């Protein structure tokens, strides 16, 4: 964490006992409050009214194809690093109705857009990688020419309370993508968890107002040092990494590398990696009709570049083999996105490694593909 970075935060200190009051502020302001809750042996975003619902001392042990929660003796509420999903499902809904069509008595078709009704929602405990991913999803779904109305309504209702990561999972590699473990930007309020409380600072005008209203004591030098040590520890715990963006572009020179087939042998083409990826945004649409034949709903649902239909044009299937689908995903995510969005589509959260049923590791794949220099192998 740079000195400039710390200076910009100017955090105040909030004793552990004040956290419930801080949560209550959002409810009083009319927000639905979502936070991390242990459910089905993972960390999930759920409505929380009391900080007792938050996971005390819960750490997430993650590996390739493995996710287990462990309770340790510390009293940290944000020691887990992440669950199966970032905040993607709260914005880009996994299944939703886009519009409703009805055949009227006069033969005209009445089309009504169905927009989500959402309450203002404050999310506690958003991670730096989640926020980096959100910025990418915003670029995709909120493009000036064609903003997605469903995404936009949910996005505008969000208030984001980010937390620095004090611990990394074995699958994390955000230091190498530059997206964590300390919060960068994109949050309304930032927090860092220390042994005896929290440092908190505003990240947006509305976040700053709330922080000002709390009248926190400015953080001491010792507290600022602890804040740095916390994220330094998380960074030091990371052993996986991706090379820089210039090197990642060289994946395009490796289209005939033998490693694609090796991954293709192991890959189930199940789409789990794309579903848990906080930046993947592909979907399919289809009608759901009523029996009377007079009305229909246009449905949208998450799709994946690992599905056959996704790689089909009419009856022609573009990517028949799994190796080609994996190649499409990896090269698009890491190289293609740079042209499309100005940066790689990977934020280093490692979910694709954890939630792959057979534990395929994209950092290993990239290392194998880029090993041996630039020449096409």
């Amino acid at each position, binding site marked *: 964490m740079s000195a400039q970075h710390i200076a910009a935060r100017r955090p105040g200190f909030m004793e552990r006992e004040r956290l419930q009051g801080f949560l209550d502020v959002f409810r009083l302001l009319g927000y639905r409050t979502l936070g991390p809750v242990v459910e089905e042996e993972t960390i*999930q975003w759920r409505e929380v009214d009391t900080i007792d619902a938050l996971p005390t001392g819960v750490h997430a042990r993650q590996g390739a194809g493995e996710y287990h929660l462990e309770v340790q003796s510390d009293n940290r509420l944000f020691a887990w690093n992440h669950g199966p999903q970032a905040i993607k499902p709260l914005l880009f809904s*996994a299944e939703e109705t886009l519009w409703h069509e009805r055949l009227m008595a006069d033969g005209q078709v009445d089309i009504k857009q169905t927009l989500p009704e959402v309450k203002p929602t404050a999310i506690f405990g958003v991670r730096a990688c989640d926020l980096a991913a959100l910025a990418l999803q915003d670029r995709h779904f909120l493009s000036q020419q064609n903003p997605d109305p469903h995404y936009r309504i949910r996005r505008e209702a969000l208030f984001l309370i980010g937390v620095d990561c004090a611990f990394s999972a074995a699958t994390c590699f955000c230091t190498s993508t530059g997206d964590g473990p300390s919060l960068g930007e994109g949050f309304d309020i930032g927090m860092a968890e220390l042994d005896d409380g929290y440092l908190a600072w505003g990240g947006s005008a509305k976040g700053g107002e709330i922080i000002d209203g709390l009248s926190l004591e400015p953080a001491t030098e010792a507290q600022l040092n602890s804040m740095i040590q916390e994220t330094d520890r998380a960074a030091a715990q990371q052993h996986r990494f991706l090379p820089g963006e210039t090197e990642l572009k060289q994946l395009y020179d490796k289209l005939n590398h033998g490693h694609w087939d090796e991954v293709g042998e192991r890959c189930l083409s199940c789409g789990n990696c794309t579903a848990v990826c906080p930046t993947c945004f592909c979907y399919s649409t289809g009608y*759901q009709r009523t029996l009377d034949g007079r009305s229909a709903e246009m449905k949208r649902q998450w799709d994946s570049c*690992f599905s*056959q239909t996704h790689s089909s044009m009419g009856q022609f299937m573009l990517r028949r083999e799994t190796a080609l689908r994996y190649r499409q995903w990896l090269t698009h995510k890491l190289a293609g996105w740079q042209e499309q969005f100005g940066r790689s589509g990977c934020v280093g959260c490692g979910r694709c490694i954890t939630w792959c049923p057979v534990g395929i590791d994209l950092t290993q794949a990239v290392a194998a593909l880029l090993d041996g220099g630039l020449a096409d192998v």
Partner: protein
Amino acid sequence: MNRTKPKLAIHKFSSCDGCQLALLNLGESLLELPKYVDITHFAEAGPNNPNAKVDIALVEGSISTPDDIERIKQVRENSAYLIAIGACATTGGLQALANLADRDAWMAAVYARSDTIETLSSSTAISEHVKVDLELHGCPVNSQQVTAALADLLVGVKPVSERQPLCMECKRKGVVCTMVTKGEPCMGPVTRTGCGALCPSLGRACYSCYGPAETVNDGALAQRLQSLGLTTEAVARRFLFITSGAPPFRDAGLRLRPPPLETDE
């Protein structure tokens, strides 16, 4: 609208009747159905007219007797559009396990006199005997999928067949992966979706009653299941279970464990 309603028949072949029960379980939409179609044959529900000409036939069950072969030809001839429903009609069903076993030994072990049993040497999918226009999978079939297909057909649209793996459905529904968190031997990555992720949403592993998904990498999944502690035999049994007649699963199972299935197991 005064035009005649399309005619619908529901036929049963070698099966447990569970798919017909799934249709009976539809509740209100079952009562709504006769407003739009004329149900000419559905013996389990009442109408019994198996030889009527119809626009749409739903066929439950596999072909396992000489009589089944004659009947399915007749049904095909009488039906403009034929939908095979459920694991039996689409893959031969649970009873197709007999295709991999020593049939005579089993018959002798089960029946007092096997010469009174008239059966084919195999139980097979409807599509192996007549042209099938649409297959809806599952044991039993998901009745919502059936009504969705009927709703499409009634307005003249070709119904879409689900082919993606169950994992996509779990992720869309926010169901946590039982394999990654609990080491459950889940068949989801190779199984066709359509059930609504029923078993994983209850924390259980999928046992593949919908049969093979569009892409089946059985080798990679078998390796993973073995690393979770399953024996080769146990992995073979997960492929050779309800839809052992589906070629990708039959081949996967037989690669792991050659036939025949022994009677003493």
